[in-house]
């Protein structure tokens, strides 16, 4: 058994020796390569690199610059807007019909009492074209507010016998009536007893 085996081992390589010899790996001989110039490529790449960085820098700077400009212009626009709005407000106040009417009234104008229309086709006046009179005007402002009752003190009226007064003043007021004239003569707010006294003298 073992003899057979040894024989086989030694014999096999020998049989395929030629093929093995042919299949053995060897280093490929160096082929001389054609060398391209290296310089232009390096220059190109570095140019691209420098150009890119510089471009990016410029772009960023200009963007910052325009950001400042945007802010400044926006501020200006807001200011102008506000100005326009305040002018609109002013215009609205000037166009207020109440103001226009008051100006017109100061110029002596009144609304027409009776409407009249001029027909352009034949120049005929339709309606009653009488000039307006000052009385045709409309009151433009409200009457002054009346004070509430508790702020309008009642006039204080003191009735007194006229005789002693006459005695002090002599016969200067011969026609003075008895103390009934108080209410008619009493003055407004702030009337005090002194006024009341005078009232009853007249």
């Amino acid at each position, binding site marked *: 058994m073992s003899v057979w085996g040894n024989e086989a081992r030694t014999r096999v390589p020998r049989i395929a020796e030629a093929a093995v010899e042919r299949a053995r790996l060897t280093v490929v001989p160096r082929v001389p390569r054609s060398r391209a110039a290296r310089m232009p490529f390096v220059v190109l790449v570095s140019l691209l690199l420098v150009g890119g960085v510089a471009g990016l820098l410029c772009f960023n700077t200009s963007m*910052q610059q325009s950001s400042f400009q945007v802010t400044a212009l926006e501020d200006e626009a807001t*200011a102008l807007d506000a100005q326009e709005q*305040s002018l609109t*407000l002013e215009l609205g106040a000037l166009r*207020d019909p109440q103001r226009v*009417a008051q100006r017109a009234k100061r110029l002596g104008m009144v609304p027409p009492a*009776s409407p009249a*229309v001029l027909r352009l086709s034949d120049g005929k006046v339709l309606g009653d074209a009488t000039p307006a009179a000052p009385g045709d005007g409309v009151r*433009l402002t*409200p009457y002054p507010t009346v004070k509430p009752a508790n702020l309008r003190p009642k006039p204080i009226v003191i009735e007194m016998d006229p005789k002693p007064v006459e005695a002090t003043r002599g016969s200067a007021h011969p026609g003075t009536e008895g103390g009934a004239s108080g209410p008619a003569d009493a003055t407004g707010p702030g009337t005090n007893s002194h006024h009341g006294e005078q009232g009853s003298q007249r």
Partner: protein
Amino acid sequence: MRRPRVRSLRGASLLRLRVALLLIAMVVSVFAARLFQLQGVDAQAYVAKARAEGVVTAPLPADRGEITDRNGEPLAESVDGLMLVADPTLTSKHAAALAEIVARRLDVDYFDTLTRLRKPDTHFQYVARRVPAAKARGVVAAAQARGFEGLDTRRDPVRDYPAHDVAANLVGFMNAEGDPGEGAELMFDHLLSGKDGSTTYEVGGGNRIPLGDNSVVQPQRGHDLHLTIDRDVQWYAQRVVRSAVQTSGSSSGAAVVMDSRTGQLLALADYPTFDANDPTGSPERDLGSRALRDVYEPGSVEKVLTMSSLLDAGKVTPQTRVTVPPELRRGDRVIHDWFPHGKLHLTLTGVIAKSSNIGTVLAATQFQHVELWRYLRKFGLGQRTGIGVHGESPGMLADWHNWSQINQDTIAFGQGLSVNAVQMTAAVNAIANRGVYVSPSLVKGEARTSTGELVGSDTATQHRVVSQRAARLTAQMMESVPNPETGTAPKAAIEGYRVAGKTGTAQRVGKRCGCYDGTFTVSFAGFAPADDPRFTVYVVAQDPKNGGGGGSIGGPVFHKIMSYLLQKYAVPPTGTKAPTPKIEW
């Protein structure tokens, strides 16, 4: 010799590889742990930190839509005001001095401002809102002049009412908090208000960082609202009504001007009213429209509705003869006329001209309850006009099933039912508009109210109430009222024009006793030119103290407003002559 060397080399690189791998794995797991900590555990805290680092979020308030009259004249407009805002991290240092500057120049509370300027942990605080631009900029400039940083301004619309009290009863107002208070501002708020936006951006040194986070939600401007009101007519009507109410000592008054053909309201004047720029200066009861909210008994003006109904039903003619007794006993009541008289022989035209209650009652007896009720409903009584004003009252017209004879009698001459001023105008306008009722409108075009109703001139409806002939005959009968020879309101007549009208002096139910308390509602309704009506004007004054009636108080107001209208809209006289009224037989 060679083999062992190779093996040892291989062993060394393997070791290096393994060591390196281990190191990398350790580093990576540290990274992973940190990543988990950042993204999983503390994420929100870091987001907040990042936000605080120069990120600004600011609201962008939407412009509120304008309210204009029919010609585009502004009744309410939004002005580009500014809000004053502060960054408390910058202002807290000099808060006291800053608050003094702000409180002195603007109408804000010093202590409130102080707390706002010192608020911790925030970059944004309102200091004052709706400030006119110039004022707000003045404050910031004053602060910067003293070297204080942190105050800034942003857009914030201000509501302005350029005509003050003109149409304030309809337009309403915005209160101090910027919420709608009354009128159209309230009723059409969702339409006018628009939608606020916001902006978020990063800042560095006061400028936006160009490539930083930056997002803007644009505000949406509110829609404009156009009313059918003519601002000039409204102004004039308000002045005339004010003058009439004040001279007659009435408690309140109103005038309604309607375009006869379209039902559009050209003016709806109320007095007392208020200044929309200063609503707090007037009592709360004056802030709405009395012409729509208050109801009252219309009195004799209602007679024209009864008469036109009778004419339409073919039961009478203008020449129908009525014998009017000095007084009329109906059941347990006695009906009188406003003037004492003996037995009168009036035509139906005479009944209108003299405004006889008894004559009207006698003529109306030809109606069943249901007939009169149906006509009055068709004239729009007892139901809201739906013109889109908050809190309109429907008035009252009792169901005919519950009527007794005395109810029909009083309703025929305008007592025992209640109306608001616009309802009554629309009813009389049906006669002016050749017998066709047009629903009144206040909004030009159409708009949806906050209660979901679609209102406006585009949605106005029409229906025939009485025949064209009945309307024409009624108008002719009404021409006898401003006629100085026959009628009760000579002051309503306009020289050169044919005017139809009707006075009303009604007993008034007092608030206190709930009964007729001896006060009156005086009114006048009319239209011109009578044979081709363009405008219907209705005037009403409550509780006059000077003893005047519909003719003496309402008549001149009608005359002034109608003359103004005819002049402004250049309506020529029709050139026809009014038939001479025959009032007696």
